[in-house]
């Protein structure tokens, strides 16, 4: 990732009263972060002292570090040079469609007052699309409206994902 964001996670308070391996999966991050060499240095000292007397954590760390290094062999391949060009061409094609223009107009401006009405607008676009598909004689527009109905549907799904994320994120952060 461009900006690894692990650092802030390591400020968590950690007591080594119990073996992290024996105290459930909730503490497995201590072991994983140690093996990934991303554990807070203060915690590293505590954990290394614990490992002097805990053979289970020692064995876990040895094999986990070996796996961590082994996984480095699976390198990614370079992205095709025409990736952006293809994507921008797809976007340009899509933007030309009358359905997309209608959708863009309905959601344009980003004004907050409109946003709750976007699902209604989407339903309207879908309904008009379906009506046109059933009544229109041109075979070519059938494929277009199917495509656009799909696009509107996926846009709605993505908005829903973002909405759920917004609701869930504060809860997730509290757990840290």
């Amino acid at each position, binding site marked *: 990732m461009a900006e690894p964001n692990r650092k802030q996670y390591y400020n968590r308070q950690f007591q080594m009263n119990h073996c992290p391996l024996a105290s459930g999966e909730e503490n497995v991050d201590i072991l*994983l972060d140690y093996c990934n060499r991303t554990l807070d240095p203060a915690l590293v000292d505590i954990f290394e002292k614990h490992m002097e007397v805990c053979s289970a954590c020692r064995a876990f760390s040895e094999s986990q570090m070996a796996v961590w290094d*082994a996984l480095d062999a699976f390198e990614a391949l370079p992205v095709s040079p025409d990736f952006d060009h293809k994507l921008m061409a797809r976007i340009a094609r899509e933007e030309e469609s009358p359905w997309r223009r209608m959708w863009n107009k309905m959601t344009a401006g980003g004004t907050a007052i409109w946003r709750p009405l976007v699902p209604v607008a989407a339903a309207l676009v879908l309904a008009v699309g379906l009506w046109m598909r059933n009544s229109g004689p041109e075979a070519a527009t059938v494929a277009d409206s199917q495509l656009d109905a799909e696009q509107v549907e996926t846009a709605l799904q993505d908005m829903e994902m*973002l909405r759920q994320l917004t609701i869930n994120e504060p809860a997730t952060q509290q757990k840290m």
Partner: protein
Amino acid sequence: MGETQPQPSSLTGVQESVTAALGLERDAELMLRVRDGCTASFQLLLERHRGPVVHFLYRMVQNQAVAEELAQDVFLRVYRSRATYEPSAKFTTWLFRIATHRALNFIRDGRHEKGHQSLDDEIGDGMARQVEDKSSTVEQNMLKEVRLQEVRNAIEALPAKQKAAVLMHKYQELDYSQIAGALECSESAVKSLLFRAYESLRARLAHLDATGTKES
């Protein structure tokens, strides 16, 4: 188009301080500009995230052409959602949530297995590109290939959700809360997924030493 060159940001110093004062992450700021019709900002977002998204999808489906196809869908969906975008969740988490959805759907629909036979050539080609090192001996390259194949097989054998968690953790360096957001589960569930996934990987891969040879 070649690998696109990074373009200078269109943000002025003043705008950057306003962004910082509002606590908006850079990606969110760019996405808001895309919402307002700035195509250059979308290009910047693409430059920042194209690699990580394609690489994640490549390791998920183990096929470069399919990974790029899926990544195109991901960025298209981001673009389509621009009008309703609100910077309320971390952009990376949202992006990887869409990418994970696409990959899991692809695997669930069985297109992965159906295409497997015809993908063998592509996989072989990818392997050759990864292990080919002119400074190494033939034997060293063969050892690397064996090691790489073992790693790929071990990852491929993981259940899809465990695989996604490991890939985001190991290669994309997402933190536990981001992985939880992308997989739509709690952080505890992520830790459990990672624990089980690494357990399987340790069983299959811990015998490989750092040089790629098998320990006796």
